[in-house]
């Protein structure tokens, strides 16, 4: 197969980012610990250039057409995710500079791995074929396992990496098994071809088992109950900037492929998997929120909170047949990326005991130590709890709407009640920040971390107050199915 110029163009973000990662890896040997900040700067620069390329492609006429024999597609849906994921890489880098600088491990590999994870994610969201999606998923996963264990001297970090690896590999196996069953029935791998084929056939049990295994594998990746048990340990053990990244970047990618596979290939069997997803969503929201109530460690609390948020996002999956389903997921994930990353970034700021175990009491008296940090954290917490006028409210509004429209009123009721419950643990942090006395020493933030936090805060507030431009742009990013 010969690649045309436009094929090269469509592939250029991934290729550029790969080259950038390799470049970083090769030059990092020339930089000692002291000059690592330059590597971080390069990472941000390369990622920003990649965003530029992606944006350029989005203006390129005819970019939606699948290339590489239908395996790779750069539609608006993919472009949205690519930009958002690249932004999350920039944010992660900003949040990592001081953190990695203080750690006794070489920083070059860290940033290179971050970029390789990014490459995997970019390929994932463009995957239009079961095999290309799977390969990209593994590329992303392998890099992220290493990131989780980046603090190799810390036992918790190693444990996190191992847990992440074992369970990740297991879920990939489940996913692969499902893919093979579907392939065995259909004899093809492309998502649109599958949809076309299924339109004319009756469901069979083998096919349904295949679909369910794919679903299970993907629910593992998005951390839905009962496939969530790895999340708290991994989130707690991994270095905090990495945790922040895990909670958004790979999550976005996982949601993107879940959406693409089920929205494009399996809409016909919605009645079969819809109820299962509904039950999983209900369980995820309940378990995530209730378990978060009991946590004393902020990272674990936010881990459970992100599980709960995975449950809300599933409401959009249930609503795929309505106008608000996929649209709602996009709006919600946009909001989620900024608010959740922002909350974790504040945990990075408060890093007190090396790298692990941040208890809620570390937030005590933050309002006196650094008022801006406390107010910004409050914004993220309000947004996570879905209080208007924040991005989180707009996102949740869409998802609740999708669930109502899809006929799952009971699920919507559960979701709103659970989001009221979530307020209780989010506001434990708020209460600690504003009502309790801390150690009183002023808290200084680094410029890079401040930048990351402020980007998140501005986005969270702006999308909440003036959502119109954003939601309208995202409406255009919904996948067009024939």
């Amino acid at each position, binding site marked *: 197969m010969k690649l045309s110029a436009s094929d090269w163009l469509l592939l250029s973000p991934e290729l550029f980012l790969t080259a950038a990662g390799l470049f970083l890896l090769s030059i990092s040997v020339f930089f000692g610990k002291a000059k690592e900040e330059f590597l971080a700067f390069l990472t941000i620069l390369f990622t920003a250039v990649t965003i530029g390329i992606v944006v350029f492609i989005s203006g390129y006429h005819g970019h939606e057409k699948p290339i590489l024999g239908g395996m790779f597609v750069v539609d608006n849906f993919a472009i949205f995710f690519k930009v958002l994921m690249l932004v999350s890489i920039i944010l992660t880098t900003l949040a990592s500079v001081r953190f990695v600088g203080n750690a006794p491990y070489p920083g070059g590999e860290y940033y290179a791995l971050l970029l390789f994870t990014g490459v995997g994610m970019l390929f994932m969201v463009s995957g239009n074929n079961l095999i290309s999606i799977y390969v990209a998923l593994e590329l992303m996963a392998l890099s992220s396992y290493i990131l989780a264990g980046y603090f190799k001297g810390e036992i918790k970090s190693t444990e996190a990496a191992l847990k992440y690896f074992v369970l990740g590999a297991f879920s990939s196996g489940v996913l692969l098994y499902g893919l093979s069953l579907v392939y065995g029935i259909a004899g093809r791998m492309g998502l649109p071809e599958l949809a076309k084929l299924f339109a004319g056939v009756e469901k069979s049990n083998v096919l349904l088992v295949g679909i369910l295994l794919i679903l299970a594998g993907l629910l593992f990746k998005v951390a839905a109950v009962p496939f969530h048990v790895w999340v708290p340990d991994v989130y707690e053990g991994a270095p905090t900037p990495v945790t922040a990244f895990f909670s958004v970047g790979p999550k976005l990618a996982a949601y993107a492929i879940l959406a693409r596979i089920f929205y494009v290939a399996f809409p016909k069997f919605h009645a079969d998997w819809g109820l299962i997803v509904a039950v999983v969503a209900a369980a995820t929201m309940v378990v995530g929120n209730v378990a978060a109530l009991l946590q004393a460690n902020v990272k674990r609390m936010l881990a459970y909170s992100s599980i709960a948020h995975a449950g809300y996002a599933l409401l959009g999956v249930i609503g795929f047949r309505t106008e608000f389903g996929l649209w709602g997921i996009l709006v919600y994930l946009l909001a989620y990326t900024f608010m959740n990353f922002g909350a974790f970034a504040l945990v990075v700021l408060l890093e007190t005991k090396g790298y692990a175990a941040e208890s809620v009491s570390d937030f005590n008296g933050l*309002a006196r130590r650094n008022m801006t940090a406390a107010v910004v954290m409050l914004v993220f917490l*309000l947004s996570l709890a879905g*209080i*208007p*006028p924040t991005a989180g*409210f707009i996102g949740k*509004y869409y998802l*609740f*709407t999708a669930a*109502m*429209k899809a*006929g799952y*009123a009971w699920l*919507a*009721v559960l979701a*709103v*009640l659970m*989001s*009221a419950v979530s*307020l*209780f643990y989010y*506001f434990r942090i708020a*209460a600690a920040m*504003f*009502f309790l006395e801390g150690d009183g020493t002023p808290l200084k933030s680094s410029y890079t971390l401040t930048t990351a936090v402020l980007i998140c805060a501005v986005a969270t507030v702006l999308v909440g107050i003036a*959502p*119109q431009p954003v*939601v*309208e742009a995202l*409406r255009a990013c919904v996948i067009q199915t024939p």
Partner: protein
Amino acid sequence: MQLMGLWIPILSIVTYVPLAGALAIVFFLPKERTGAIRTLATATVIAGFLASLPLWFLFERGHAGYQFVELAPWIPSLGVDYHFGIDGISLVLILLTTLMGIIAVVCSYTAITERQKEYYVLLLLLQTFMLGTFCSLDLFLFYVFWEVMLVPMYFLIGVWGSDRRLYAAIKFFLYTLAGSVLMLLGIIALYFYNTTGFLGYKGLGNAPTFSIEKLTVVAQGLPVDLQIWLFFAFFLGFAIKVPMFPFHTWLPDAHTEAPTAGSVILAAVLLKMGTYGFVRFSLPMFPDAITTPWVLTLMVTLAIVGIVYGAMVTLVQKDMKRLIAYSSVSHLGFVMLGVFALNMSGIQGGMLQMVNHGISTGGLFLLVGMIYERRHTRLISEYGGIARQMPVYATYFLILVLSSMGLPLLNGFIGEFAILQGAFARSFWWAFFAATGIVLGAAYLLWLYQRVFFGEITNPANANLPDLTPREQLTLVPLVLLALWIGLYPKPMFDVLRVPSEKIVEAVGGRTATEPQLARERPSAPVEASGLAEGTPRP
């Protein structure tokens, strides 16, 4: 509003003046300059009040629609508009809010000594959010203000409250939030019913909108079963806020633990959000639901239980602030009873009583706050014989106690009388139980007064209490004047409240019992109104 050829968005100005003041304090005043912060906060609320005054004079009394309307698209993708406008009921509540804003700021000068900058910023933010709630004519916008209002109140209670403030703050937030999220689903359901339908209900196919006016018409045409579901979705949000029995348990904690200004705002304005919700949404939107016998019986029963149970619990309170807090449960039971009487007299009385309760209970909280500043205790048993030491204080307290009791010549009487009249028109027993509440109300208030003010000073700590300062009196005078004005000459209030009440009666019309004549005529007959005030109501 047109002024000299210029169109002025007066409602937005009234709403956002406090926000502007808050931002100015945040960005321009360092926290050490407490004097300047207080001055700016005071200037802001006074400016807000002055900006809201023209509303009262320019408001067209007989006009059936909303006035001072501002309309601009906000989220066109969803059909959400930035839509402000008021009718009579929002008018009086807006004025009450701007006035209470001044009182809340001024009464905090000495009470709040810590973290003053944050305090005044939060107070001003709260002011904006409350005003926005009353001005909104778009359900989505309303919901945004309704929810975000909880945040500053949470912090006011949590930072500047008394001993159990953390518990009270989160309880307040969770209770009200839990109620209002279900309302959000109700709003979504209405939205879909108006557009594409859901859950087997066929939609009307209209363009998406959250306009309260349009959705009210849509909701009135809903099938009864759906109306009842939606009524209860909205009901929970409003009933918790009112609070109606049995959703009232957050109230004593929040009121008692909040700082004085917080209690005043809570009692005077925040509780009115719930009753306002009933008259703005529940009744006009779901008339078939509310006239369904079992629903109405349930509502009235809850209101009456609130009145009687609230009053009985009030009787046994040992803490002054808690006592007044519980009395709110009883008083708001009255408001709800009047509203659910579904006739002119009851609804008008209920609306008026919303304002009255704000004046009298807000004032009582203010008074308790003043003595608390002097003695740092709220226990009734710590006091006794205060009248000798603080005659001025005792006088103000007496006037507001009498106003709260519903003594003729004062505002409470007019409201309670109209409510009783409305209730009586529906059923003798409703009025009977409500009247029991009035008797109990007189009992707990007079007993409170007697224990605190009469007798000899037994506690040496009370021997040298200074009487009220001019500043403190300044916060009380407007309330007393209002109480007297409404008590003596309620016609202007009834004039303003008549149209919205008529609209509600019309919405539930034909389904209610016969109208009592007096209530229909009173608003247009000033003589009768003043005659009423002298305690000689005519049949």
